[in-house]
């Protein structure tokens, strides 16, 4: 049910992000969505890719510092105020969001967002209990890796 996110450490300098992307491109790894958190010196590139295990392996082979983390992909109505409502629910359940980002494509008329919670298991349970649909890994990255 969890989605595996691939993260990489990238210097905040011209050409460095490109180098990471080239490694993934050469290995035929597709990026489904991504976000970058940046500081003045470096950034953390976080991606949902079609094959995170392979992505992790090839980045490592190329001396790029990386890791994999479990995140949740959650369906949210694509309407004004629905993200607000979702966050309101999370806050009431005392679930802390470390960061979040969105998919570009809609899924059956709904938006899908990636959430990195402090405590993923607690978040999952609370979300299911309150009726949120957590998108399965297979629905995002497909069966055919």
């Amino acid at each position: 049910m969890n989605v595996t996110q691939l993260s990489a450490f990238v210097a905040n300098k011209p050409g460095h992000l490109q180098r990471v992307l080239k490694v993934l491109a050469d290995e035929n790894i597709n990026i489904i969505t991504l976000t970058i958190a940046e500081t003045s010196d470096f950034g953390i590139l976080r991606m949902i890719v079609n094959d995170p295990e392979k992505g992790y392996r090839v980045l490592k082979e190329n001396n790029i510092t990386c890791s994999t983390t479990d995140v949740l992909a959650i369906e949210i109505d694509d309407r004004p105020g629905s993200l607000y409502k979702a966050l309101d629910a999370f806050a009431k359940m005392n679930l802390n969001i470390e960061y979040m980002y969105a998919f570009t494509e809609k899924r059956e008329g709904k938006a899908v967002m990636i959430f990195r919670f402090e405590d993923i298991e607690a978040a999952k349970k609370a979300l299911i209990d309150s009726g949120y649909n957590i998108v399965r890994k297979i629905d995002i990255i497909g069966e055919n890796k």
Partner: protein
Amino acid sequence: MFNKEIETMPEKKMKELQLERLKWSVRHAYDNVPFYKKKFDEAGFHPDQLKSLDDMRRIPFLTKQDMRDHYPYGLFAVPLSKVVRVHASSGTTGNATVVGYTKNDIEVFSEVVARSLASYGVTEKDIIQVAYGYGLFTGGLGLHYGSEKLGALTVPISGGNTPRQLMLIKDFGTTVIACTPSYALNIADYIEKNMPDFKIEETRLRIGVFGAEPWTEAMRQEIEKRLKIDAYDIYGLSEVIGPGVSCECSEKSGLHVFEDHFYVEIIDPETGEVLPEGEKGEIVYTSLTKEAFPGIRYRSRDITRLYHDSCKCGRTLIKMEKVTGRSDDMLIIRGVNVFPSQVEAVLMEVPGIEPHYQIIVDRKGSMDDIEVMVEVNEKVFSDEIKVLNNLTKHITDRFRSILGISAKITLVEPQTIPRSEGKAVRVIDRRKLS
């Protein structure tokens, strides 16, 4: 001149005085410090064999490592009840080098600083603002006692707090400031940036006494121009006594060594051979009068040249050139001694950090900046910024508490730090000092 007899003593007479005092000092060390006895015995040297200054070269060297190995009091030659003060250099606990002073040692220390101040033209009519740090570092208390010895009005403000320094310069009518040369430039920068109405030429400030870090002729000109003062070099090291080992005079060309208290030699840092007068090499010090902490042939690692000239100031004391280099990898950052090995030791405390780092020292504006680049591996990496920020904060805090310096920690990608022939380039010093 504060001590005309000594400072104008003919060379021959000075050498006689040195030999007489060396005989006492070497025996004092041998008789009272087991380390020296063992070391001299092993080298087949006995204090009775010291018949001429040339015999000095038979005595083994004292190194910083010897001092660390005998931390804290192992090299003291008098009972602790006779020691009235200690100073220590920066370093991780157990690694600091500790020096002690008897009442008489403090007297000598004050005397050489007073002589230095007098050689810059400072008199009892001056008001001296001591902006060196007071504490284990020899700069603050050293200048303080020397200034009092001279009879000048001494303002013990210590380092930092630039607005307050400027307020006192103005309100107290300060005529002399003593601090590191980089701090002097920092003061000039501060005025320019924050106090455009402050007119330094309208204060009574006329002389700057600068030391504790290497500085260049270009820096002297800049300080003199911007602060409208005469800038003089005071040199010293805690292992020998502190500031006042040697000082410039009105000529601003070379530093006179107070040879009646410190015997100096120049050696080839590779072979340890003594080099003839005039040749460049590492300067080695032997204390002639120190009681608590005699230093016999201490390898300073400072590179300079010794020479006699007929100095217009009238002093006959041997001169040394301004020190601009080191024969080891020690860095002096804002007056604090830092060895790359200490940087490494701090990094190694952090679980997961590998010894791939690089130290970049630069002088931005007027202050030394130290940046430590650390490669990020999988063990310390996280998808969360806060985890990496906490890591850099933790390392920064450790540098501050252990080494006493604020360093900028930059996390970099693996393999970013250049490795040449399998060995990483640990230090890049971009300050132009020579």
